[in-house]
């Protein structure tokens, strides 16, 4: 029996040159237990890649096409090239997301708010997501916009690399995003350039680190009960999938 050399599994697989890389959502390693727990089931060696949804092709269906058309027209009228501003459009579960290049975010948001055909006058805030496996797009900021005039809801998503976690502030367009951006900065460390006072809002001012990042541990202390010790939740042996 020939010996198979053990090859370490790279946490993020290498994509060959010239191949369009899928955006990796999440890399799932193992299915059971914490790492190095002596798992004998074999599932511990599993590496699964979870992918971002692929860009949708037209027609998007319903009013989505009308919004996309109107957005492209109004961007052109404002001197912004829609092709470069809109990275991709994803229609998933009856919701439409516009992925916008971060440099052009404020211009796109003003168009979305002001154009009569769009009129997304109400912002439901900003929500950050940390995807450590989505290389050079680790931080996502999702802006949920509501048009009360047309009764439509869309999502605008912007990404920033972990090496340069900067996104232009949208407070000048949507003043309500003031606290939402502060919260996203506090919990993810995304710096919103141009925000009037980008300070921590939920955590204490001198807190080190940004708790909602995926590499920030949950924390917690072991609990002792009737002589047995139960480890904190993120260190328990549990199903990872």
């Amino acid at each position: 029996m020939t010996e198979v050399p053990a090859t370490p599994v790279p946490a993020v697989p290498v994509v060959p040159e010239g191949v369009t890389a899928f955006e990796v959502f999440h890399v799932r390693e193992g299915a059971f237990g914490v790492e190095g727990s002596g798992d004998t089931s074999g599932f511990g060696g599993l590496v699964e890649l979870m992918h971002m949804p692929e860009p949708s092709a037209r027609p998007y269906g319903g009013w989505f096409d009308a919004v996309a058309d109107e957005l492209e027209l109004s961007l052109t009228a404002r001197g912004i090239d829609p092709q470069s501003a809109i990275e991709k459009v994803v229609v998933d579960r009856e919701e439409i997301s516009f992925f916008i290049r971060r440099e052009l975010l404020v211009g796109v948001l003003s168009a979305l708010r002001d154009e009569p055909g769009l009129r997304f006058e109400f912002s439901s805030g900003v929500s950050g997501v940390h995807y450590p496996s989505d290389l050079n797009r680790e931080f996502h900021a999702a802006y949920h916009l509501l048009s009360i005039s047309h009764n439509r809801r869309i999502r605008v998503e912007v990404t920033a690399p972990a090496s340069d976690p900067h996104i232009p502030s949208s407070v000048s367009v949507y003043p309500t995003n003031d606290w939402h951006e502060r919260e996203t900065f506090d919990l993810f460390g995304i710096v919103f350039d141009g925000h009037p006072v980008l300070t921590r809002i939920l955590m204490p001012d001198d807190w080190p680190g940004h708790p909602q990042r995926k590499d920030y541990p949950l924390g917690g202390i072991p609990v002792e009960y009737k002589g047995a010790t139960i480890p904190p939740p993120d260190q328990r042996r549990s199903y990872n999938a």
Partner: protein
Amino acid sequence: MTTEDVKYTSAPSQSDDAYAGVNDDVDGRIFNVGGGDWDSITVAPEGETERIVVNMGPQHPSTHGVLRLILEIEGETVTEARCGIGYLHTGIEKNMEYRSFVQGVTYATRMDYLAPFYNEAVYCLAVEKLLGVTEQIPERATTIRVIMMELNRISSHLVALATGGMELGALTAMTFGFRERELVLELFELITGLRMNNAYIRPGGVATDFPADGVQQIRDTIPLLRKRLKDTGNLLIDNNIWMGRTSGIGYLDLTGCMALGISGPILRATGFPHDLRKSQPYCGYENYEFDVVTADTADAYGRFLIRIGEMEQSLRIVEQALDRLQPGPVMIEDKKIAWPSQLSVGSDGQGNSLDHIREIMSESMEALIHHFKLVTEGFRVPEGQVYTAIESPRGELGCHLVSSGGTRPYRVHFRDPSFTNLQSVAAMCEGGQIADVIAAVASIDPVMGGVDR
């Protein structure tokens, strides 16, 4: 305190920190808090009027929990008002990433503790939308959700009136408000077993069906509630003192509301009838007849009138929902998602139903495995993200849920209306009197558990 204690704390230690114990670390900068004369602490610059910054809260009884208001005042006039929040931050969103989708309900319900059913509902609607099973939720479960949510709107608005009244000195409003809320909480206790933090609405349906006398108890309570709500209204609506304290206070017009993302009664007090139950119905709200209550005063008094009116509308919806309630299952049929057992009340309290325990422990090995897998691992939710929004008593409550295809949420974010609405404090209070800050904040009705999450 013994003499030894005194010596221990007052003895001069190694450095300039008079209060350091022998084992305390005295390296670095040391802050001592002591008394002193105001003039020796701050000297007003020449030619400038005195500028005083007052912290109202976080422990002030009139600040609705641990809200800290930082007020810059000139005499009795507030020149600048800012909020300090975060004192109740418990990391609910982070914690939910480490628990299965069903366990998440237990966390979500604790955010806005006056409106637990709304937190649960918005989260469960998001999970169901990600699963793609929104259409498969049984009719009875959806109707029960509506009943619980509307009863919850009444109990939440009653607290808003009660605490708001108390803060302005209307103590009868407080005793009335809490007395009426008790009626609703008794219904919650009867149906869910708990008065708050119910974790009753679950992905796929609700935790357990109404008890045998549940519907009748609600029907019996409604007339009493209606009569007493009318009393509370009569007590305050034409009350000169109440109007004097709230009319024209905390003014915020439609433009301000739109810019600041304000929703709920504050937005409707500007005369704009925006209500997600009407514009983007969920849980079958399009099948109920009710009015969107508005006012055109854009002040604290208008918001009070709206809350009074909305409670009446909620009773209307509950009555219609009770009429629509048909026998049937309260949990989704899909056994890969549905919680395997129903709750029941036994001699030793609430727990899994005895029939179910008998089945898994002594009749069916497969049922036991199924129960174990679903309870410990939970169900998988396909990759993707959704944003769901419902009309909570305070405005648009949203849930941005991201799943990586596993059994736990990848990221959950709640857009709590209290958080957003609190941003309007500066716009409402600056230029007014200190006493009016209390009335304005009470009319915003922030719940810090939701603000800080």
